[in-house]
């Protein structure tokens, strides 16, 4: 069994002379929830389409589950929820999932049991026999999620699954991602909602101008400094003078009691506390500010280039 479920090297796609994806090099392991992030036009959709076999790469190599992308053997073992999922609106939710199950070659006896289970799982059991034309955008995403997992895929591709979903719907997607990962499937999540990615994924890749520019285990990214918020009983000039002796420290905010500091790393914090206490400042709390995925994203992508 291949240890890597997604393995690409130098994957490239040109539309005419314009490169949409320049260099997609990724390795994703079994059972991982993998976030794929990038600004608009970075090549995310084209990348995901290449992995699904919808778009043929111009150059490079791509394997899913150890086999070349796009083969039927691979497609039998993946699931896909497209962005803005839509389908023939006269079908009922049950008929839609049944149709996709049949296209996956799932046995009728299995489908008879599984279709109602899946619709219940995505919270649509009360809407089983309603036609899709009566569905809201969020309900369409839910039924799209059900069809994506009808064949118990080994890799589940989700393209912006939470766009258009209410908080309950987003929670449901997170739960399904966790279930799929727990049963050993790989989840490849393409999303703009960084908070969702942060809550769901084990690792993230950042893509800019068609190239993977960074890959991080969730929360383990390094930035050049640590932001700290210090709450005190009142800051005095002596404390500020003493703090300025710490190498690399910068005061980013000071409203008399609340102090914002930027230090090279968390090892500088005991020294910060010592300086404050020695200057007679009462310290209530010292809280290092976690660098969010959004901070990392914005720092990696640089200033907004506009559209």
């Amino acid at each position, binding site marked *: *069994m291949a240890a890597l479920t997604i393995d690409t090297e130098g994957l490239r796609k040109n539309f005419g002379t314009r490169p949409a994806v320049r260099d997609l090099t990724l390795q994703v392991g079994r059972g991982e929830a993998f976030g794929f992030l990038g600004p608009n036009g970075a090549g995310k959709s084209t990348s995901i389409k290449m992995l699904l076999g919808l778009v043929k790469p111009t150059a490079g190599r791509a394997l899913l589950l150890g086999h070349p992308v796009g083969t039927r053997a691979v497609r039998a073992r993946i699931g896909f929820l497209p962005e803005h999922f839509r389908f023939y609106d006269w079908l009922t939710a049950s008929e839609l999932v049944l149709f996709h199950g049949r296209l996956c070659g799932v*046995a009728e006896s299995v489908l008879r049991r599984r279709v109602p289970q899946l619709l219940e799982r995505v919270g649509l059991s009360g809407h089983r026999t309603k036609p899709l034309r009566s569905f809201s955008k969020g309900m369409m995403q839910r039924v799209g999620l059900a069809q994506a997992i009808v064949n118990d895929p080994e890799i589940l591709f989700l393209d912006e699954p939470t766009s258009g979903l209410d908080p309950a719907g987003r929670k449901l997607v997170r739960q399904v991602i966790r279930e799929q990962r727990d*049963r050993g*499937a790989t989840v490849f999540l393409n999303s703009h909602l960084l908070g969702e990615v942060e809550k769901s994924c084990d690792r993230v890749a950042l893509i800019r101008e068609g190239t993977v520019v960074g890959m991080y285990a969730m929360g383990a990214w390094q930035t050049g400094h640590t932001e700290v918020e210090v709450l005190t009983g009142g800051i005095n000039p002596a404390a500020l003078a003493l703090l300025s002796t710490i190498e690399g420290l910068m005061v980013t905010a000071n409203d008399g009691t609340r102090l914002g500091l930027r230090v090279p790393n968390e090892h500088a914090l005991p020294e910060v506390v010592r300086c404050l206490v020695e200057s007679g400042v009462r310290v209530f709390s010292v809280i290092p500010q976690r660098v969010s995925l959004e901070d990392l994203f914005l720092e990696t992508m640089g200033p907004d280039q506009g559209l």
Partner: protein
Amino acid sequence: MNDEAIEMTEVAARSRADVDAAAEEHAWREPGTIRTVMLMAGITFREAARRRILWIAAIAGLAFLALFGAGLHAMLRSMSPTLPAVSRHEGVGMMLMMSFYGGSLMTSLMAALTSCDTLSGEIASGTIHAIATKPVRRWALVLGKWAGFVVLLGAYILFIEGGSILISWTESRYLPPHAVSVLGLIWLQAILMLGMTMASSTRLSALTSGACTVGLYGLAFIGGWIEQFGALRHVRACVDLGIVASLVMPSDALWRRAAWRMQPPLLGAIGVGPFSSATVPSLIMILYAGIYALAALLLAQVLFERRDL
């Protein structure tokens, strides 16, 4: 642990076993080509049958049949009761041929209008993405869609042309000669239009694809007239031009063969007309049209197989 959490754990445990079993066996499931074609044909038929355009076509067809029935009734009433049955049937045959011409035109247009967005529309809307990522052959998807429309067009022909035959039989006990092969030729004409529309809709927008095929139909129609006039006036160049037009698009040749098969002897003697045929396309031309229709389907399959979605 609440109920939801218990349920999630059970689902996870069951599914993990499923994944492991499937992965260990390196087994994978797929529906098979025939099953894929049947599934796609079924859903395409149902999708097309729900379109408003089909209902409009059905209403137009009913109006068409009512008009034909009323016209035929009026004509038969105006005939002297002493007129021999042969002469009565000559008149009914002419009217029936006009009706068949109208029916073939409507069916051909229906073929182009209902199928023009089945590929291009689903590519543009992304509907095709959820289908094409399943373990199915892309060419089988196209074949399935094509088959769905072929059945639909067959049903429409039975409704509109079969209705005409039924009316003529009820009113005058007249049955056109070679009715089955005539209906077959009209069906092939519609299938030809369908194949061309689907092939162009793999690369062009829905509207452009429909316009392309209807344009070709028009070209074949004009070509047919030029050929008939050329034959009557013995102008070889006109006949050749007509044949070239038929080779580019053999739809009119199919109609002219159908008209020749069903025309009453008197009409044949009168000669040229939009509903009759002075020059009869050969069986080789019909065979060519059949190959053309299959080639159009094949082209649609190859173009769809090769394109990025």
